């Protein structure tokens, strides 16, 4: 089965819980999300968020980390006790520490304020998609000139086979299965190298550099494996799925 041919459960009618204490942000999210056929539920603090989470059972949560009554990070931990609903965090630039922390606590993705709507929509779609296909593994990933066949462990660029070391392939496979979603350094290290190596970020960089040399047309301006500075890496979705 080809990934490209599959029809994704798209946004139509999905309920999004927006948790933010700033009315202008809520207003602009409400308008934009409604325009993209999401059903929007709003909460201005953590208590309301928890109540609406139980009452409305949203498909997705957009959460601002700075809430008046308690920290957004605490809220993530609490949601994760009972629910696997995808969470996309709104965070401040330069606050890489909370971004990583939010992701480690179980958030699915983040986006730095200020952000463009297109970017947010892409993040939301990626988060939703992963929620729907969390069980099954993707057989193949096609993005531009890059093809990754996970079952046959076969990678081609512009039709040419690319030779990857076993570790490089493991890393790529992990990125592909979470395509479009940011993966923290810790997460990748733990999943690919095992818990003991979780802090050795520089190893990861060496391998990412290796992968880029082999997969990117211009390794200095990567288009597939994107760097999320201070947080981790993200495999760019194919353009048709981003839009």
């Amino acid at each position, binding site marked *: 089965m080809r990934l490209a041919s599959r029809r994704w459960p798209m946004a139509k009618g999905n309920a999004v819980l927006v948790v933010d204490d700033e009315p202008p942000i809520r207003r602009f999210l409400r308008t934009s999300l409604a325009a993209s056929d999401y059903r929007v539920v709003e909460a201005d603090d953590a208590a309301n968020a928890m109540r609406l989470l139980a009452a409305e059972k949203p498909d997705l949560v957009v959460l601002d980390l700075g809430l008046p009554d308690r920290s957004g990070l605490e809220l993530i931990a609490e949601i994760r006790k009972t629910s696997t609903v995808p969470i996309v965090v709104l965070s401040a*630039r*330069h606050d*890489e*520490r909370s971004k990583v922390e939010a992701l480690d606590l179980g958030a699915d993705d983040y986006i730095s304020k*200020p952000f463009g709507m297109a970017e947010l929509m892409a993040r939301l779609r990626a988060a939703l998609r992963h929620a729907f296909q969390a069980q099954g593994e993707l057989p193949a990933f096609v993005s531009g000139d890059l093809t990754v066949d996970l079952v046959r462990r076969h990678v081609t660029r512009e039709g040419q086979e690319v030779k990857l*070391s*076993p*570790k*490089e392939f493991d890393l790529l496979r992990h990125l592909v299965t979470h395509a479009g979603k940011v993966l923290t350094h810790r997460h990748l290290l733990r999943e690919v*190298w095992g818990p003991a*190596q979780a802090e050795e*970020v*520089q*190893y990861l*960089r*060496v*391998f*990412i*550099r290796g992968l880029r040399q082999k997969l990117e047309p211009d*390794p*200095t*301006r*990567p288009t597939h494996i*994107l*760097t999320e*500075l*201070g947080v981790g890496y993200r495999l760019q979705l194919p353009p048709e799925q981003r839009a």
Partner: protein
Amino acid sequence: MAEREGRPSPEALLAAAKQEGRGRLKIFLGAAPGVGKTYEMLLSAQARRRDGVDVVVGIVETHGRRETEALLDGLEVVARQQDDYKGHLLAEMDLDAILKRRPQLVLVDELAHTNAPGSRHPKRYLDVEELIAAGIDVFTTLNIQHVESLNDVIARITRIRVRETVPDSILDQADDIEVVDLSPEDLTKRLREGKVYVPQQAERAIRHYFSTGNLTALRELALRRTAQRVDEQLLSHMREHAISGPWPAGERVLVCVSEAPATAGLIRYARRVADHVRAPWTAIYVETARTQRLGNAERDRIADFLRLAERLGASTITIPGRNIAEEVVAYSTSNNITQIVIGKSDRSRWFEMVHGSVVHELVRKTGQISVHVISADDSEAPPPKSVQTRPTVEPFRMEAYLGSIGFTGVALGIGLLIKQVIAVQSISLVFLTAVLASAIAWGLWPSMFTAVVSMLAYNFFFLPPIYTFTIADPENVLALFFFLVVAVIVSNVTARARSQIVTARSRAKTTAELYAFSRKVAGIGAVDDLLWATAFQISSMLNVRTVLLLPAKDGEGLDVVSGYPPEDHLDDADMAAARWTWEHNRAAGRGADTLPGGKRLFLPLRTGSGSVGVIGIDRDVPGPLLTPDERRLLDALCDQAAVAIERISLAKGLDEARVLAETERLRAALLTSISHDLRTPLASILGTVSSLRSFPEKYGATEREELLATLQDEAERLNRFVANLLDMTRLESGAIELKIEFIDVAEIIGSALQRAGNVLAGHRVEVEIEPGLPMLRLDAVLFEQVLFNLFDNAAKYSPAGSRIDLRAKRDGELVEIEVVDEGPGIPPADFERIFNKFYRVQAQDRRRAGTGLGLAICRGFVEALGGWIVARNRRDRSGAVLTIRMPVVPEIDAARQPAMAHG
């Protein structure tokens, strides 16, 4: 009716201002003990208490009088301080407890009391001054015989001199004086009834002190003194309110100070004269050649007299001169003195005929000026010194006398030799030479000794009959007599010349030392160095230990800032004395009036504009610390040091002012910049949005798209500016938390290029990264921001469509990253300045105007990461090159990489 005209005199206003914040002093003045001062004070206090005033009893002596004790009822009494002094339990007023308790009014009995040794102040009136200064009202009692200026008058009337005196100034400070008056008959009656003293004592007292005559005189004095004070109050009221009145026309009193012990009485007399005519008065001392020959005790006395005069309200002046009378007259005429007070000479008529009399000369020469010639009472001891000084004693030197004998021996030898060769009559001249030599070498007494020995030797060896002390020829008796006379005169003259030379030398030495010191301190720019040099110089010149204290930075108390030998701590007693000195601008501690129990003597370091600090000195010798000469030298050194300290702190103040001005300038630049940079994009955004909302129908799809693009660009510009401001703030507040990791340079460059996509859209960007660059230890986020700002800068300052080069290469132990543009380049003068905050190269076209923060942030971040950044121009064509250099840190453990790659 008083006519109001002019303005209040400045002095009056100053005095009134000084009064503000001070407590009020009320003195219950009595003519003699037993008139009921304490009773009256308690009565008033009770009345005040009933009015709701917070009254406490600081100290009240009831002497067991029952009516008085009854009046204490209901008043809070502050417990006395118990001092165990030499086995006696002395109970003194607890000044600190009162200051801590801070009542509105405190009762302090017997103002003239002398405190027990070891108390803060030796005298109770000093305690009272401190209470008033602290803003507490004081009621106190005083007998008229304790008033300083009346002291000798009363001693003459009663034949009893009272040792405990209070200065007149305290009466002048009093806001109120209440005379507690009792007729002599009533007082005597009370005494007889045993209401004042126990009966036997009373009987003796009545006979000696409380005679009706005495009491009447004392009573009159008390009333007159009070009347005088009331008069002054009226005057000062008139001055304050600018009421012109019948001022005494320009009376001025001058008192001549000499070393004679009677001068103290003279000064008090002058004070009374001045008070009487309500005139300012001056004490003058004329320093003549005679002064140089005075002993230290005399010189000290003169200084003390001048101080006494100052205490009594005179201004003092010392002028050098040859002739006392001439100088006094000259000063008097040039200062409009109307009355001169001078002591009657106790010298013999014979002495005056030889030396002339200052008094006679003065009376002859003064013309219009009245001269009061006062015979003062000699019985009085010299006043106590305010800072005791150590007498300098010329030590007895054995070698001088042995040497004198030696000289005589040599003269004898020569004389005998001459006698062998030729018979001359005037062998005595040889001995005279010995006397002269001795005077030059050792001074007066050894030379006198030589004169006597020579005379004996001359007689013994040369005057017939020789080898006996008898003289046969009467002519020789005469010769010998004149020999002695000449020898004594020669001794005197020579010794005087010698002592003048010695004095001159020591003066020259002092002057040279002072000069050296002032030159030394003048060259010092740092306070610490100056303090150290001061402490060292004073220690070594006076052979004392020195500490210097300056006011603490937080404004609370004093800090020991320097010392020689180094010292950084004072014990509590010394610290208290130092603080007192600082607060009151007067000497305290060892040998001074205040806190004499301290280990050190503290003196204020004063300049014309006030105190700058405190100096403390001590020395191992017991007794007073310094000789008068040393004290004078110390004063001079302290003055120098104070001026130097003030100079440096002024310079520092100037620097601070300059920094402040610079900061102000920056702040102004910041405001201008921020308001411009925030307003421009905001204006476009608001304008665009309002157009879109107001006239939606007017815009076609293309125009709409264009407006929206503007909107987004401007919002992004605003966002970048705010981000820059935040970065700058983080940088300046030190709030940046670095997360240093090994980072792939290529990865960061990629990330920055990606983020700068929009900014660089109008330019061609060429990236050239040397393969195999080592990883760098960096904070990825900060470094990306640096690169982003450099791209932004390059795009801003080079024409659209031009090329921007990014090159990264290794250069030895550095990695060099260059951003090269094709713009006009940077004026060489600006290579450094472009990294300053809010600095912008003057652009011809306004549209390039940036925030002026980008490069400043770059420098701040790069330096925080251990690298540096410089700017230059291209050599091949116009364009700027901004280069970052980062050090290469040994990379990760290479041995583990392959293992992982295949693991």
